[in-house]
């Protein structure tokens, strides 16, 4: 077990290193120099100021040095400078994290709450009318763009209540905040629960075909016991790993949903930074997202190792 954790941890560090290289390279695909773009979008004309920006960003240095400066800055918690707001980037990003984290956990909660039980029902009643219905619902969940779902929800609010729930400034109480976040969280969560449902269903169907399910039936176990005691316990193992996939999937949904509902979270900030062409911020935000996903996946693997007796006893 100890060896496994250590190996998995090393792999995580390797992935993060590769990720930083990937992000660094991706953002240098930009045709033309970053300083030119920043320069233009900031509306500056003085060549001296351009030189100053270049020096500040270290763009006059060789590419390896630039990369080293960025990564070592990251490790010290130095995320650079937000050009538009003229504040240290960390001051822009930090206050936005809790909002996005709350939204994401609520959406995740929704998706597991509905996705797992409905996926089990769908698998157990395979090819029955209820299975067809659930498959149509989950497939449409994956087919509706979540930003459109968000817009439809807004439209419903406008038509029935005459107002739109906007998360403008930090709400007064915890429950107001939950209320305000519940709607966008449902919009993101619908899509995610559709994914969870599908993955649970196929995992469950796979398990139901196994020999040990036939053994359980031959022992006289009831359908409930077969499905929940024998099958679900085996089927949730792969479903746990879904939470890792979910994390990446959710972030995509958050980006558009925060934009639709005007929620001042990290995900919308990324879109804004891209629009403002504030590349140093984009680079750091993308790296931040990557770290979150990679760490979640690491934790999920650890949880999997705890849950599956076959892994626990190895080494």
């Amino acid at each position, binding site marked *: 077990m100890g060896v496994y954790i250590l190996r998995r941890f090393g792999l995580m560090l390797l992935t993060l290193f590769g990720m930083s290289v990937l992000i660094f390279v991706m953002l240098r695909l930009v045709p033309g120099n970053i300083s030119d773009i920043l320069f233009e979008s900031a509306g500056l004309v003085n060549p001296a100021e351009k030189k100053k920006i270049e020096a500040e960003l270290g763009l006059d240095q060789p590419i390896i040095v630039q990369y080293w400066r960025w990564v070592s800055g990251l490790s010290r918690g130095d995320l650079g400078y937000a050009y538009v707001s003229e504040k240290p980037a960390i001051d822009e990003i930090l206050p936005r994290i809790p909002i996005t984290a709350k939204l994401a956990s609520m959406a995740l909660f929704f998706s597991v709450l509905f996705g797992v039980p409905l996926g089990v029902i769908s698998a157990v009643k395979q090819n029955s009318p209820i299975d067809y219905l659930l498959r149509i619902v989950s497939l449409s969940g994956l087919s509706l763009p979540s930003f459109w779902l968000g817009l439809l929800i807004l439209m419903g609010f406008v038509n029935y209540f005459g107002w739109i729930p906007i998360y403008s400034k930090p709400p007064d109480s915890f429950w107001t905040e939950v209320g305000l976040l519940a709607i966008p969280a449902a919009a993101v969560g619908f899509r995610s629960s559709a994914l969870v449902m599908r993955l649970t269903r196929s995992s469950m169907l796979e398990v139901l075909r196994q020999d*040990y399910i036939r*053994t359980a039936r031959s*022992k006289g176990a009831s359908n409930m016991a077969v499905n929940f005691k024998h099958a679900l*316990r*085996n089927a949730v*193992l792969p479903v746990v790993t879904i939470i890792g996939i979910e994390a990446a999937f959710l972030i995509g949904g958050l980006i558009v949903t925060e934009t639709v509902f005007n929620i001042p979270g990290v995900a919308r900030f990324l879109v804004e930074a891209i629009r403002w062409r504030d590349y140093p911020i984009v680079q750091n935000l993308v790296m931040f997202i990557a770290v979150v996903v990679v760490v979640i996946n690491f934790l999920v693997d650890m949880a999997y190792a705890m849950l599956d007796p*076959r892994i626990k006893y190895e080494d």
Partner: protein
Amino acid sequence: MQENMNTSKQVRTDAAGTAAASGTILEVEGLQTYFFTRQGLVKAVDRVSFTLNKSETLAIVGESGCGKSITALSLLRLIPDPPGRIVGGSIKLLGVDLIGLSEDQMRKVRGNDISMIFQEPMTSLNPVMTIGNQIAEVLLLHQGMTKAQAHAKAVDMLRLVKIPEPEQRVKEYPHQLSGGMRQRAMIAIALACNPKVLIADEPTTALDVTIQAQILELIVELQQRLGTAVILITHDLGVVAETAQRVIVMYAGRKVEEASVGDLFAKPLHPYTRGLMNSIPRLDLIRGAETANTRLQEIPGIVPALTALPKGCVFAPRCPLAEDRCRAEYPDYKQDAPGHWVACWRSDVVAGGTSG
């Protein structure tokens, strides 16, 4: 369908009066299990009848795909539906027809009155449950034990099937056990409720040759100790000779011959049975290797697709003795000696061939 209302408990008490006297535990009559597939109607089990007596071992023999395993699963009503279904016949356990039982009543029979061990010990145990819990499960389901009692009994059962350090092993998971040990654990599960009938579906096929004999010995020993009637499904006539008292031979979903082990080996009446016997190596023949007729013979051809069974006798296309009548009409069962039945037009020729 009055028996419908009987629960398993009543089955046990009724037993004393009627069936036990005759010694018959299980009476299968005209069993038909069909599968409805895209390729057509598959008559996996077609009008198979047999009886099982108290404390005896009945072997069902045949090539793979002949319907042995489907027969076994039919007895427990575990045929996956769709695509399969029992469409006819009766399965009487101590006089009560299992076909007529509700699913709830049937569950009380499974694992309690009739239990089963499967071919693949590697995949037939639940990988995320401890061995102890898997044994305890049947006891909790059928014997009304407390958890503590069930776990104590689980240890006893492991000791009974000769797993060393049973106190340790109950806490372990299937992947920690070897294949032979897993099959012992399966036997422990199957015998935990002291069932009347144990169905063993190729219990040794997936195991190492050295382990196979041990598992068979264990089954025979426990059967004698507990008085369980055993249905042993196998393709191995050697196993039959060592363990069973009576045999039925199946081919393409039908019973083609039924006899005591002694009768069958002494005087096989169906050409298919003969074919099976000629395809196993015999030590006495190998020793006399200089004599001419020592080469192992195989049965020419393969089992026909069950969707395209020939008219007439199903074995006719592979049968060296087949004549026009065989291809036109399916033969009725005829009794050669008490308890020795065969479905073959030309059994007299087969019998003559053996004696000569």
